[in-house]
């Protein structure tokens, strides 16, 4: 009887042990099986001409056949993304499926996924400055600190790395980067009697004024000195206000909180409002989206703009009427009293985040995709095939980068997605871009940023359309913002 009891007890304990070990094994998350620093240190894997997969990825992603993500707009316009998807599939066998969603609805779609805890879409596409912090703090994005070791952070643009750190954690990685550069039309400046290319916003003002007067008389009433976008859609007005603030050495954030009631921000606000009120810029700027105002410049209806570096590639092909009458320099500083280090560009930056409700194996696959997409191999396609900027500054430093691109693959993908055939060429305006990569900045605004953006947009309109004094309008806007954010 006694021996029988012991046997039963032993069987029970053995069973308990097996269950315990199995649970412990299952306790290790699939993505923890990946050793990001093997077979090479992570920095070396990322800097290799051809991306090197980390050890343990196969076991971590076992059974994963497909990764699904939201793409902002049609894939036809994102050839580098399509190439990245193809290369990733070639390397891992995991198919990447892009759900093409209009840019205005990409975030609402992702929001629907995470609020319903839907695990079927694994990667979300979000705007870094307004949506990122909210997504991270709501617990909708999976933290990926293991991908962002200090050594890896040092490889990338400091301005960008700052944008993906929230609450001392990393939740995102790059999808697209475009530095802002300053474009002007040399023939207009010459015709209007502007002696030198503006280097400060003060000089831009004077030059724009002269250009407007000349253009109004010689070209027509709808030709302006300066153009910019200030619509709420895409929070494009935040970009312009921030760029002007940075040019004075100011910041829109302080210790993670809004810092808008500053002399720098007030000056920026007045600059924007008065440029329209004093007829230097068209009132239509209030409704221009990011593409509208750059199109306006491309169509030759404005003398100057602060725009995306990618337009340096687009002007010759999409706007032949410009006939090469454009040039680009680093963004202006505020005035001559400021150091050149204040010639800081803003960044158009969209991020990938991983759906926190996806299962662990898909999270592992998604992390792998994000890791690949920030590598030199993926970044060179963004820079040379699509004309965007490189997230990884090292790509600008490689003199043989053009020959490292698989142009046959690029052409094949272009044909498949219906994009125009890529042309084998070097980087356009390389010096301006490389310099911007080191200095460009953007701040990931805290939760509630969309409301702040909305209020600023409303009062910008009130000041321009309803004639409200610029400073008074800003003060009223700021008091509303304070009520909401505190």
């Amino acid at each position, binding site marked *: 009887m006694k021996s029988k009891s012991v046997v039963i007890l032993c069987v029970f304990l053995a069973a308990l042990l097996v269950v315990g070990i199995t649970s412990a094994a299952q306790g290790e998350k699939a993505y923890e099986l990946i050793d990001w620093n093997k077979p090479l240190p992570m920095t070396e894997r990322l800097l290799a001409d051809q991306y090197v997969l980390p050890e343990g990825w196969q076991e971590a992603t076992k059974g994963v056949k497909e990764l699904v993500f939201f793409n902002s707009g049609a894939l036809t316009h994102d050839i580098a993304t399509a190439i990245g998807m193809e290369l990733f599939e070639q390397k891992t066998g995991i198919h990447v499926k892009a759900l093409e969603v209009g840019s205005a609805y990409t975030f609402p779609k992702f*929001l629907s996924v995470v609020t319903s805890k839907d695990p079927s879409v694994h990667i979300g596409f979000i705007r870094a400055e307004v949506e990122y912090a909210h997504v991270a703090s709501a617990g909708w994005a999976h933290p990926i600190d293991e991908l962002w070791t200090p050594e890896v952070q040092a490889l990338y643009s400091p301005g960008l790395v700052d944008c993906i750190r929230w609450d001392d954690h990393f939740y995102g990685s790059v999808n697209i980067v475009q530095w802002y550069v300053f474009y002007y039309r040399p023939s207009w400046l010459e015709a209007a009697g502007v002696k030198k290319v503006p280097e400060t916003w003060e000089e831009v003002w004077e030059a724009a004024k002269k250009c407007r007067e000349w253009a109004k008389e010689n070209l027509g*009433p*709808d030709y302006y000195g300066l153009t910019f976008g200030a619509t709420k859609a895409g929070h494009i007005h935040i970009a312009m206000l921030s760029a002007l603030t940075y040019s004075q050495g100011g910041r829109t954030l302080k210790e993670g909180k809004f810092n808008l009631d500053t002399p720098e921000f007030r000056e920026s606000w007045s600059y924007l409002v008065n440029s329209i009120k004093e007829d230097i810029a068209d009132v239509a700027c209030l*409704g221009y989206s990011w593409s509208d105002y750059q*199109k306006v410049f491309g169509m030759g209806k404005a003398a100057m703009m602060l725009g995306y570096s990618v337009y340096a590639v687009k002007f010759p092909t999409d706007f032949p009427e410009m006939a090469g009458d454009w040039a680009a320099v680093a963004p202006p500083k505020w005035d001559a009293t400021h150091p050149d280090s204040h010639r800081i560009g803003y960044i158009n930056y969209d991020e990938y985040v991983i759906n926190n409700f996806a299962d662990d194996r898909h999270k592992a696959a998604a992390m792998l995709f994000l890791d690949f997409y920030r590598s030199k191999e993926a970044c060179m396609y963004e820079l040379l095939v699509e004309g965007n900027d490189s997230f990884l500054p090292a790509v600008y430093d490689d003199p043989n980068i053009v020959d490292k691109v698989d142009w046959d693959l690029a052409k094949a993908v272009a044909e498949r997605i219906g994009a125009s055939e890529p042309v084998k060429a070097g980087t356009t305006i390389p010096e301006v871009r490389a310099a911007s990569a080191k200095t460009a900045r953007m701040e990931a605004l805290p*939760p509630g940023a*969309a409301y702040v953006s909305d209020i600023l947009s*409303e009062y910008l309109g*009130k000041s321009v359309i309803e004639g409200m004094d610029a400073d008074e309008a800003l003060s009223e806007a700021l008091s509303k913002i304070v009520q909401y954010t505190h």
Partner: protein
Amino acid sequence: MKISDSRYGTILSIPGLMLLLVWVLIPFSYLFYLSFLRYDNINPVIFSGFANYERVLGDSAFPLILTRTFIFAFGSTGFTVVTSLILAFCLNRIVKGSTFFRSLVIMPWAVPLILSGFLWAWMFHPSFGPISDILMKLKLTSEPLNIYKNPNMAMAGIIIADGWRRIPFLTIITLAGLQSISPELYDAAKVDGADSFHIFGYVSMPLVSRPLLIGTLITLMFSFRSIDVIYSMTPGGGYAKSTYVLGAYLFDYMYEFLNFGVAASASVILIIFTLAIGSVFIYYTLKKR
């Protein structure tokens, strides 16, 4: 076992009632519940009583938003009704090529509202839209036409875009009503010496008024909660929010500010307004019986 007719009817309605429960009652109850929570994705979620309602109704912009909503809904419906009536009467008279013209009238219906907004946004674009360009070429205006800088014109623009998409529906309903009128009535009116205006006022209109009224109420309800056209044409409600309506307000709180509690309370308020219009529709529908 013999089942009474009323019980049999009740049993047969169970699947329908279940659908109603799943599709209407549960989501609405959840929405109602959300409207009493502080759910802003910034702070922890807690029960907040009527705070969200107070916030919406106490918002200094709310009276203006409501006014704009009414102007938009009634403006769009009015534009739709007048245009549909004209089109329906014309189509009723056309004999040759009637199928072609009817198909043509229905075409905007195939365009999603959101696309209708993008289409009209491009048409009215001050820098590269054809309307401004044509007006300037015809020397009707010396400066580019920018409807967005004038709040009234911006509102008129979104009313045209919204109405354009709704006209086919009301035209078809009115046309069906017109075609159901016996030709003998027209003949009789003509024998009595009635001219075209008399026939329109005393024969056609009274007989087409019921389908027209029902169509109008449906259009009004849809316009009242419309956002697609407004959002795509004037993102964020246009310059200085001149086209910011209740639908846009709730969309912003939901998808932009991620404040689900306030969005839910704005939704409940919108539902109450829509139900008020809907009850008129139900009243007229039941009255017909």
